[in-house]
C-alpha cells in the first residue's frame, strides 16, 4: 500500500472503508502525534458506539507493534483509551447482536472489549478481526517455535449491498442503481433511444397534439369575430361562414384527436413491447443471487406495472406536459395581444394557483402513497387468509380474521377520507381563485368599456378574453403537479433500466472455452464461499471425485450441502479457491456448455404449465416420443402417466398442483434422464414423499446414477446406501470423507447420525 493520500476525489464513503490510506484528514493529523517514528498503520477501524451504548466515535489502529483504541477529543487531538502489544494477542472475535456488535480480543488470561459498533460498521470490523486473528495465529506459531505463515491481506468485506458504490447513499429498495448519481438527463436520453425507432410516428403524434392545442383556441377567437364583426356588422353571409368554420374546426379537432390518440398509443405499445421483451430476456441471464435479493412479485411488477407506467407516461404524460406548456404560452400571447391591461390583471392569481397546485401535488402524492401502502396491507391480509382458509375454519378463527381485515380496512378508509378532504378543499379553492381572476377581468373590462366606449376593447374581445382565461388556468394547475408525475415516471424508468443494467454476476470469461463431452471428474480446491461478508457457507473445502462416482452429501441443516451443489452448477462464483471439472476451472468454461453437462433433481420439482411430454422434454425439446416414453419408464413414471386420461398429453396445471409430490418428482427425474447429463445432482430428491413412493423413486434414481458422477444430498441416510463415498459437512467445513464402512468405523459425526436414524427406524420403517 502506498503512503500517498488518495486526495479529494475519494468520497467520505470510501474514507470510511477502514483502509489506512483512506483516513479522513482530521484523523490523519492527530494520528501522527500518537504513532512512534516509523510506525505505520496496517489496519484501522472506525466504530460508532461507546462502551455505555451511546453514540460516539472510537478508532482502532493496528500497527506492527501495537493495537490502539483511540478516543478523538472534541476539537483537536485524541486520547489513547487502550494499548496492547500485538505479540500479546491470542485471539479475536466479533459478537453479532440484533442491531450492533462488539469486537473482542483476548490476551493471555484476559478478554477485552475493543469497540462497539452498529451494523453499518460490521464489514470494517470483520476486516480488522481477520487481521487480528492472523496475528494471534502467528503468535501461537512463534510460541511453538514454528515459522510464522506469511500474512495475507484481509479479503474484501463488502459494505452492505444496499448502497451506491459511488456516493454511498442508500439505494431505494428493489433498486440497484443510484438515482442520485444517475444524471436525470441521461434517463431521458435513454428513454428517447427506445422511441427512436418510432420517431416518425412520434413526430406525427406530436404534430397532431400541437395542432389540437392550436385548434382548441380557434372557436373562442371565432366567437369574438362573431360578436364584433358579424353581429356588430349585421352581416348574415358572414354568419354562415363563421358557423361553417366552427363546424370545420369541430370536425378537424375530432379527426385529429382520433388519429393522435391512436398514433401515440401505437408508439407507447411498441415501446412497451420492446421493453417487456428485453427485460424478460435479460432476466433469464441474471444469476440466482439477483433472484435471492429480489422478491418474485417485485421482479414481476417490473415486467408488468412499471412498464405500463412508462407507457402511460410516454403516451399521455409527456403529451400532457407539451400540450399544457404550448397552450399556456399561446394563450398568454393571445391574452396580451387582445388586451395587455386585462392580461396583467388575469395573471394576478397565477402565483397563488401555481403554489397551491404544487403544494397540493405534494400532499396528495404523499397521501396516495399512504393509501397505496394500506391497500397492499389489505392484500397482505387477503393473501394470508384466503389460502389459509382451512386453518382459519378448523380453528374457528373467522371472527378474528374479520376483525383483522376490518382494522386494515378502517385504516384505508381514514386515509381515503383524508385524500377526499384534501381534494375537496383544493379544487373549489382553485375554482375560487380562477373565478376571482375572471371577476377581476370582468370588472376591469366592464369599467374600460363603460368609460372608454371607443377604446380598443370590444365586447367580442372581452368575451374571447374570458373564454381564453378559463382555458389558461387549467394548464397552469396541471403544470403545478407535474413534478410528481415526472418523479413517478423517472422511478419506473429507473426500475426498468436497472433490471437491464444488472450484470450477470457470474460473467462468462472472455474467450470461454466450450466444455467438450466430459468424463465427470470434479475437484474442489480450498473452496471458500459466503452469501454474506465475513460469514462463510463453505470454508476451505477440498476433495476430488472420480468420474462415475456417487457421492452422498451429509450434514446438519445449514452445513453447506446445497451451497456446494450450487457452486458446481456455478449459480455463484467461489470467493477463493477453485472448482475444476475434468481439470478445467469452471470459471473458464462457457456457462451453457457447463450446465448442459449437469442434471438437477430438486426437492420441490418445478413443473411448467404444459403437457407431461413437454415437461419431460424441457431440456431437450427435440426429443422423440419414444425417447420421452423411455425416460418416463426409467423414472418409474410411465405407469401413472398412462393411467391419466390424456396420457402424455395431459396438461399439468400451474406448478403441477394437480399431481402428487411423488408424481411430480418422477416427472422431474424423467426430465433429468432425458437430458443425459454427465454430472447429476440430487438435492433431497426423496424428502417429501411417502415410503412406497420413495422406493419407486429410489429405483428410478439408481438407474439414473449409473455411470454418472452424482452428488446426492439426503437427510435420510438410507437414500445414500448406494453412494461410493460420503462427504460429511459441518458448519461449512469438510468434517469427514470416505465410504460408509470407513466412516462408521471411525465413529465420527456420520456414525452418530447413522446411529440416530437407525434408532428412529425402529419406530418408522424406511
Amino acid at each position, binding site marked *: 500500500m502506498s503512503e500517498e493520500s488518495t486526495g479529494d476525489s475519494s468520497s467520505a464513503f470510501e474514507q470510511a472503508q477502514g483502509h489506512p490510506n483512506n483516513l479522513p484528514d482530521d484523523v490523519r493529523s492527530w494520528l501522527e502525534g500518537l504513532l512512534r517514528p516509523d510506525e505505520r498503520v496496517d489496519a484501522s477501524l472506525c466504530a460508532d*458506539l461507546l462502551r455505555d*451504548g*451511546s*453514540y*460516539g466515535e472510537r478508532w482502532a489502529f493496528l500497527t506492527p507493534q501495537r493495537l490502539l483504541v483511540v478516543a478523538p477529543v472534541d476539537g483537536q487531538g485524541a486520547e489513547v483509551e487502550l494499548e496492547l502489544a500485538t505479540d500479546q494477542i491470542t485471539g479475536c472475535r466479533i459478537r453479532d*447482536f*440484533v*442491531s*450492533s456488535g*462488539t469486537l*473482542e480480543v*483476548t490476551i493471555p*488470561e*484476559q*478478554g*477485552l*472489549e475493543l469497540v*462497539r459498533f*452498529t*451494523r*453499518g460498521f*460490521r464489514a470494517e470490523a470483520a476486516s480488522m478481526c481477520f487481521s487480528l486473528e492472523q496475528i494471534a495465529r502467528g503468535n501461537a506459531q512463534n510460541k511453538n517455535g514454528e515459522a510464522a505463515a506469511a500474512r495475507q491481506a484481509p479479503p474484501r468485506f463488502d459494505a*452492505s449491498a*444496499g*448502497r451506491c458504490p459511488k456516493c454511498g*447513499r*442508500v*439505494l*431505494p*429498495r*428493489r*433498486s440497484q442503481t443510484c*438515482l*442520485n448519481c444517475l444524471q436525470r438527463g441521461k434517463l431521458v436520453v435513454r428513454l428517447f433511444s427506445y422511441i427512436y425507432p418510432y420517431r416518425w410516428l412520434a413526430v406525427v403524434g406530436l404534430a397532431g397534439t400541437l395542432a389540437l392545442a392550436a385548434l382548441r383556441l380557434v372557436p373562442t377567437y371565432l366567437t369574438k369575430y362573431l360578436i364584433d364583426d358579424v353581429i356588430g356588422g349585421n352581416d348574415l353571409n358572414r354568419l354562415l361562414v363563421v358557423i361553417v368554420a366552427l363546424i370545420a374546426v369541430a370536425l378537424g379537432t375530432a379527426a385529429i384527436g382520433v388519429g393522435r390518440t391512436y398514433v401515440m398509443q401505437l408508439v407507447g405499445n411498441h415501446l412497451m413491447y420492446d421493453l417487456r421483451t428485453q427485460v424478460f430476456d435479460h432476466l433469464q441471464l441474471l444469476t440466482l443471487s439477483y433472484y435471492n435479493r429480489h422478491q418474485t412479485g417485485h421482479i414481476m411488477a417490473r415486467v408488468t406495472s412499471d412498464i405500463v407506467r412508462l407507457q402511460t407516461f410516454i403516451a399521455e404524460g409527456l403529451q400532457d406536459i407539451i400540450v399544457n406548456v404550448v397552450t399556456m404560452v399561446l394563450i398568454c400571447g393571445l391574452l396580451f395581444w387582445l388586451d395587455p391591461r386585462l392580461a396583467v390583471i388575469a395573471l394576478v392569481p397565477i402565483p397563488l394557483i401555481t403554489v397551491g397546485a404544487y403544494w397540493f401535488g405534494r400532499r396528495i402524492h*404523499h397521501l396516495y*402513497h*399512504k393509501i397505496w*401502502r394500506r391497500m397492499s396491507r389489505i392484500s397482505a391480509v387477503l393473501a394470508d387468509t384466503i389460502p389459509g382458509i382451512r386453518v382459519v375454519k378448523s380453528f374457528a378463527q373467522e371472527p378474528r380474521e374479520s376483525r383483522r381485515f376490518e382494522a386494515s380496512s378502517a385504516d384505508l378508509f381514514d386515509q381515503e377520507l383524508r385524500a377526499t378532504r384534501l381534494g375537496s378543499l383544493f379544487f373549489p379553492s382553485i375554482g375560487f381563485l380562477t373565478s376571482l381572476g375572471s371577476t377581476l377581468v370582468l370588472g376591469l373590462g366592464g369599467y374600460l368599456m363603460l368609460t372608454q366606449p371607443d377604446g380598443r376593447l370590444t365586447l367580442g374581445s372581452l368575451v374571447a378574453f374570458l373564454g381564453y382565461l378559463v382555458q389558461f388556468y387549467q394548464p397552469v394547475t396541471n403544470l403545478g403537479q407535474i413534478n410528481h408525475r415526472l*418523479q413517478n415516471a*423517472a*422511478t419506473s424508468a*429507473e426500475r426498468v433500466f436497472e433490471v437491464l443494467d444488472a450484470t450477470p454476476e457470474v460473467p462468462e470469461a472472455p474467450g470461454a472455452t466450450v466444455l467438450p463431452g466430459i468424463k465427470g471428474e470434479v475437484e474442489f480446491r480450498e473452496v471458500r464461499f459466503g452469501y454474506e461478508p465475513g460469514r462463510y457457507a463453505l470454508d476451505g473445502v*477440498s*476433495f*476430488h471425485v472420480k468420474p462415475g462416482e456417487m457421492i452422498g452429501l451429509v450434514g446438519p441443516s445449514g452445513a453447506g450441502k446445497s451451497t456446494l451443489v450450487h457452486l458446481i452448477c456455478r449459480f455463484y462464483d467461489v470467493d477463493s479457491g477453485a472448482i475444476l471439472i475434468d481439470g478445467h476451472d469452471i470459471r473458464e468454461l462457457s456457462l451453457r456448455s457447463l450446465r448442459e453437462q449437469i442434471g438437477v433433481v430438486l426437492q420441490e420439482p418445478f413443473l411448467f404449465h404444459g403437457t407431461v411430454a413437454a415437461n419431460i422434454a424441457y431440456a431437450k425439446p427435440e426429443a422423440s416420443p419414444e425417447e420421452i416414453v423411455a425416460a418416463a419408464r426409467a423414472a418409474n413414471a410411465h405407469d401413472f402417466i398412462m393411467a391419466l386420461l390424456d396420457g402424455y398429453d395431459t396438461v399439468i396445471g400451474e406448478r403441477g398442483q394437480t399431481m402428487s409430490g411423488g408424481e411430480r418428482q418422477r416427472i422431474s427425474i424423467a426430465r433429468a434422464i432425458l437430458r443425459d447429463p454427465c454430472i447429476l445432482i440430487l438435492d433431497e430428491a426423496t424428502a417429501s414423499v411417502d415410503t412406497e413412493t420413495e422406493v419407486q423413486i429410489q429405483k428410478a434414481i439408481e438407474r439414473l446414477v449409473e455411470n454418472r458422477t452424482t452428488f446426492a444430498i439426503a437427510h435420510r441416510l438410507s437414500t445414500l446406501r448406494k453412494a461410493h463415498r460420503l462427504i*460429511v459437512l*459441518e458448519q461449512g*467445513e*469438510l*468434517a*469427514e*470423507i470416505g465410504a460408509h464402512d470407513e466412516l462408521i468405523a471411525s465413529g*465420527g*459425526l*456420520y456414525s*452418530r447420525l447413522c446411529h440416530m436414524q437407525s434408532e428412529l427406524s425402529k419406530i418408522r420403517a424406511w
Partner: protein
Amino acid sequence: MNPKRSSPPLELSPYREEILSPERVRLRRDQFRHLRLLVDSEREFADVRVAAAYPISQRANFVGFLGERGREVALIRDPERLDPESRLLLEEELARVYFTPCITRIYRVEETFGASRWEVETDRGFTIFELADREQIRTLADGRILIQDVEGTRFEIPDPGALDPASQAVLDSET
C-alpha cells in the same frame, strides 16, 4: 485432503424441559468476558449467550441461555428475581444484545425516490440512519413503532403520541 475431525457429540443440558425459576441460577462474567451460568450451584455452563424469548413484546420476561452450537441450556422467567449481581449482569448483557436506540425527536427526513435519510435524536445521542423503503417501519399492535435501517440497526419509538408535534407530523407522513 485433510478433513478436520468432526466435533464430538453434543451433550444436551438437563434443564431443557422446564422453565427455571431465577432463584436456581447465578450468572458471572469470567476474565475472558464470557458469561457463565451456574444452575442449582452444581452445573456451570461456560460462554453462554443470552437470548430473550420475546425480545420485542416482553424482553425482560423470558430469558434463554444458549450454549455450544446455539443449543439452549436453560430458560428462566422473571429475571428481576435474580440475585442483584446476576441481575445487573443480565441487564447489561440484554442491553448490549438488544441495543435499540429510542427516538426522542425527528429533526428531518429527506426522501429521494422512496429511500429516506433520517436525522434523529435518540436516548443514545444524535444519529442519522437510512431506510430503503417504508416497509422498514413497523407499527406494533401496542402502538410502538419499530424501525430497522438498511444496515439492520433497530430503532424504537416507544410512544409516538408523546413526541413533539413537529416530529409527529414527519412521522405521520412516513407511516
